[in-house]
């Protein structure tokens, strides 16, 4: 069945789902929401620990340097300072860790490779003493000519950011390219023969930082069994557990990771960063060690890769794509983190959701002496989407088509391949519906006021390509239930969904379902909270765990009531007996009898990857979004006023329409951040010049479009429970493309470098007025 949600409300159109659950499909209020409004919610910095040492980091104000000496004496004289630990105080060779590459040292290893890399840690009885101690540590260093731009990193005689010895067996180890990717299909030369128009341009996408409002931190406690307990607001507690176990030589059972809800993460809190340092300090001192980061330190811990993309794209006279050649260089940081995968997963969809007869996409992840870039909402897709969507518009302008029409002519139909060749990918939704809906909601054909323009763009992102989520559900004697699910609830509202699902599947009232997460010692394994995967993976695991509970209730009910099992059946919330239907909690109580007890169900959702696939496997689903923007340009100041912004995502099924709209609007506005205002500025010494909230602008209340409309397409065609798909990233994938297109339509000037700040726009308009080529 195909069903497009009708636009019924002024601000969003969500919530007409045909899912018939009592709670699934309803705008159930956020689990844990009350504590978030009253301030009772405990984030990591709010937790109390007795007799804890406070940790402060020592850094130097350059991006690349050799450390020649560290004098701790002045710091150690400060009352309350207990210890100063530098790299030389740690085991040799320096312990290193990482996801794809074990390249990141616990502390700077004789050399600083990016601005903010910790050189030493000061431990003190109070935070004030720790900070005073950090200021008092003398670090002698020789600044080295760092590599801070793509051009300097890719120059023939470029200084290497990493010692080649860190990358044994890597043929690229003698370069600053840590990974490359190549996706090709079709015959570009042959396609050029039937090509009417070719457009070739270079685009840039800025380095931006996650700026979670919670800077975060880590607390580590040595335990009496020789183990360690670590509190950190991470998205992947189980990955942190594994990383620490390996670094510390401990079995997993002696490493307990407790993950308080992150106060915003957006990908930045996925992978271990400073947790290994704090854990080592705790084991070294035998005391609880607590590091709470400043926002500035958060900037120096996470960012999105900047990108430069050159694209050459061919079209027939009718506007059909013939070929697309892309070179995309991702400016990553000094250590790999997951940046190589961000590049390879982003470039995998660099040809967009289009019917492309011939493609050649070459991507590179390029090391520089900058903050290690990591996952950030959208992964590598927003960067390549900016270029590819702008190319569609360039083609449309050359051919006299409009942005909607050229996309209609090229968008793949459901089931049609948009990545071809050995590892093809096919559309898993009726994506044209999102495009048409966005056009309808923006009023694509309506007349425009002066200085206004409209743009439309689409974006895709592969969901998780492999994964494992395990869940436990306990149905208790009194008819209440507890679900254990390791998803980190960082704002997306994961626990609300588990509560809704378990309530419906077991027939338990919503407020009698509680959710436990964020503790590796009590909650079963979950691979990660990322790639908008949790609804599909953990949601399925929770459904399976409930089915397991229902089967166990049936079996015990049969045994205790002397009824053959084949005369009983179960369905969500019910046990069906020869005498009629019994609610599941009632049946459970009757089956448990006077000994009471409980039923425990287990659910596992596993997606095995494919070894030969460049992404490690086929995506479980694709996020697809169409965004349309109407903008008014102030030609005097270069300021952009977004009069209307429409985002339409292909969501499968909305399990909670209120949460879908929150995520969708949030992603849309975050997309406006990198499109309009955000960029990290690095100087010649590798320093971040706009380090902190004063100088780094993110969208505020006043940057929200005058009218923001979020809508969803529901066809119940996703792989998740009740036909759901992941939804949390779609609305920022193509924001830049839609905005750039709208600005070009309003001004006649094409911009290819983000962000479109007033200065950039004004300068571009002036240059155009003077007749300079754009």
């Amino acid at each position, binding site marked *: 069945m195909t069903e497009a949600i009708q636009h019924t409300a002024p601000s969003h159109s969500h919530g007409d789902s045909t899912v018939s659950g009592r709670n699934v499909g309803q705008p159930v209020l956020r689990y844990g929401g*009350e504590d978030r409004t009253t301030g009772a919610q405990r984030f990591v910095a709010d937790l109390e620990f007795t007799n804890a040492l406070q940790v402060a980091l020592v850094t130097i104000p350059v991006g690349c340097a050799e450390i020649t000496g560290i004098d701790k004496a002045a710091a150690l004289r400060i009352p309350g300072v207990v210890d100063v630990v530098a790299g030389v105080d740690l085991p040799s060779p320096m312990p290193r860790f990482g996801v794809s590459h074990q390249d990141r040292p616990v502390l700077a290893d004789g050399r600083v490779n990016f601005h903010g890399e910790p050189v030493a840690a000061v431990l003190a009885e109070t935070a004030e003493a720790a900070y*005073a101690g950090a200021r008092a540590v003398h670090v002698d260093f020789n600044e080295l000519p760092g590599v801070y731009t793509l051009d300097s990193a890719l120059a023939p005689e470029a200084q290497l950011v990493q010692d080649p010895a860190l990358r044994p067996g890597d043929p690229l180890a003698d370069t600053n390219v840590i990974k490359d990717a190549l996706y090709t299909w079709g015959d570009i030369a042959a396609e050029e023969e039937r090509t009417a128009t070719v457009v070739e341009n270079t685009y840039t996408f800025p380095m931006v930082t996650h700026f979670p409002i919670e800077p975060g931190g880590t607390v580590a406690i040595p335990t009496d069994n020789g183990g360690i307990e670590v509190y950190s607001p991470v998205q992947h507690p189980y990955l942190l557990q594994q990383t620490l176990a390996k670094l510390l030589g401990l079995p997993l059972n002696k490493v307990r990771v407790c993950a308080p809800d992150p106060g915003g993460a957006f990908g930045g809190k996925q992978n271990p960063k400073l947790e290994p340092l704090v854990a080592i300090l705790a084991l070294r001192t035998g005391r609880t060690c607590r590091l709470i980061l400043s926002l500035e330190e958060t900037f120096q811990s996470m960012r999105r890769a900047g990108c430069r993309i050159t694209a050459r794209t061919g079209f027939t006279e009718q506007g059909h794509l013939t070929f697309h050649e892309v070179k995309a260089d991702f400016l990553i940081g000094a250590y790999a983190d997951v940046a190589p995968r961000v590049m390879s997963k982003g470039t995998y969809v660099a040809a967009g959701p289009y019917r492309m007869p011939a493609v050649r996409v070459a991507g590179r992840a390029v090391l520089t002496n900058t903050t290690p870039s990591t996952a950030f909402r959208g992964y590598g897709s927003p960067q390549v989407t900016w270029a590819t969507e702008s190319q569609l518009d360039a083609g449309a302008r050359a051919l006299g088509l409009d942005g909607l029409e050229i996309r209609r002519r090229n968008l793949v139909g459901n089931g049609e391949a948009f990545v071809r060749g050995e590892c093809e990918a096919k559309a898993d939704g009726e994506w044209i519906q999102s495009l048409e809906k966005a056009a309808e909601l923006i009023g694509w054909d309506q007349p425009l006021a002066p200085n206004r323009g409209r743009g439309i763009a689409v974006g895709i992102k592969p969901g998780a390509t492999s994964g494992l989520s395990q869940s436990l559900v306990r149905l208790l004697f009194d008819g209440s239930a507890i679900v254990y699910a390791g998803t980190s609830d960082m*704002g997306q509202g994961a626990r609300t969904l588990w509560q809704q699902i378990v309530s419906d599947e077991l027939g338990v009232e919503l407020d009698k379902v509680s959710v436990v997460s964020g503790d590796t010692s009590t909650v079963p394994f979950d691979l990660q909270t990322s790639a908008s995967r949790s609804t599909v993976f953990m949601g399925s695991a929770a459904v399976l765990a409930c089915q397991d509970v229902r089967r166990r209730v049936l079996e015990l009910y049969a045994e205790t009531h002397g009824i053959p099992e084949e005369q009983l059946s179960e369905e969500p919330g019910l046990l069906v007996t020869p005498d009629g239907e019994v609610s599941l909690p009632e049946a459970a109580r009757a089956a448990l009898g006077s000994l009471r007890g409980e039923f425990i169900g287990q659910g596992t959702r596993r997606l095995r990857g494919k070894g030969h696939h460049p992404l490690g496997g086929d995506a479980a689903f694709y996020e697809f979004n169409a965004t349309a923007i109407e903008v008014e340009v102030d030609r005097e100041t270069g300021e952009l006023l977004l009069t209307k912004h429409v985002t339409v995502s292909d969501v499968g099924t909305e399990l909670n329409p209120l949460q879908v709209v929150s995520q969708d609007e949030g992603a849309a506005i975050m997309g406006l951040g990198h499109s309009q205002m955000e960029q990290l500025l690095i100087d010649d010494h590798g320093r971040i010049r706009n380090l902190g909230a004063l100088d780094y602008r993110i969208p505020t209340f006043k940057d929200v479009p005058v009218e923001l409309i979020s809508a969803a397409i529901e066809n119940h065609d996703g792989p998740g429970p009740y036909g759901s798909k992941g939804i949390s990233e779609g609305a920022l994938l193509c924001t830049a493309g839609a905005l750039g297109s709208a600005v070009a339509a309003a001004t006649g000037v094409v911009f290819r470098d983000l962000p479109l700040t007033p200065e950039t726009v004004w300068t571009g308009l002036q240059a155009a007025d003077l007749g300079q080529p754009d």
Partner: protein
Amino acid sequence: MTSTTGNQQPASTDQQNVTCTVNGSERSMFVPTERTLLDGLRDELGLTGSKKCCAEGECGACTILLDGRAVNSCLVLCSEADGREITTIEGLSQDGLSDLQEEFLNAGAVQCGFCIPGQVVSAEYLLRTNPEPSVEQIRESMSGNLCRCAGYERIVCAVQATAARRTCGHD
């Protein structure tokens, strides 16, 4: 180039007594003179509802009411609060969730939640000083409170719904 970092200036050891009314009760703190009110509330009084993000008055996560006016508590020293009246987020829900807090939930305005205490305090201040704000006035008044989850539209809905409840005489 050879460079050196390091600054031997020690932390101040001066401490002082500060007494103020916090959420209706008289509270005292003996704190270093440079201690911010935000740190005092969080570390001395255990009122961790006010959050620390930018610590330079840009994000609004630490917003409190000082003598009834919304301020960034990271920009106020404890000593400046001596003898004054403070309402924190904890003080706005002493009798259960307020209508405003309920509307934040109803509107779907609460995502990660870290900025929400500051948002609620700012919105409460707005509604006390302007009971029927327009959308433009809400956006202007709240523009000092950042939300990276960008629940801005939802928060505007929550403020409007609360204003409607209050002006209709409901609670």
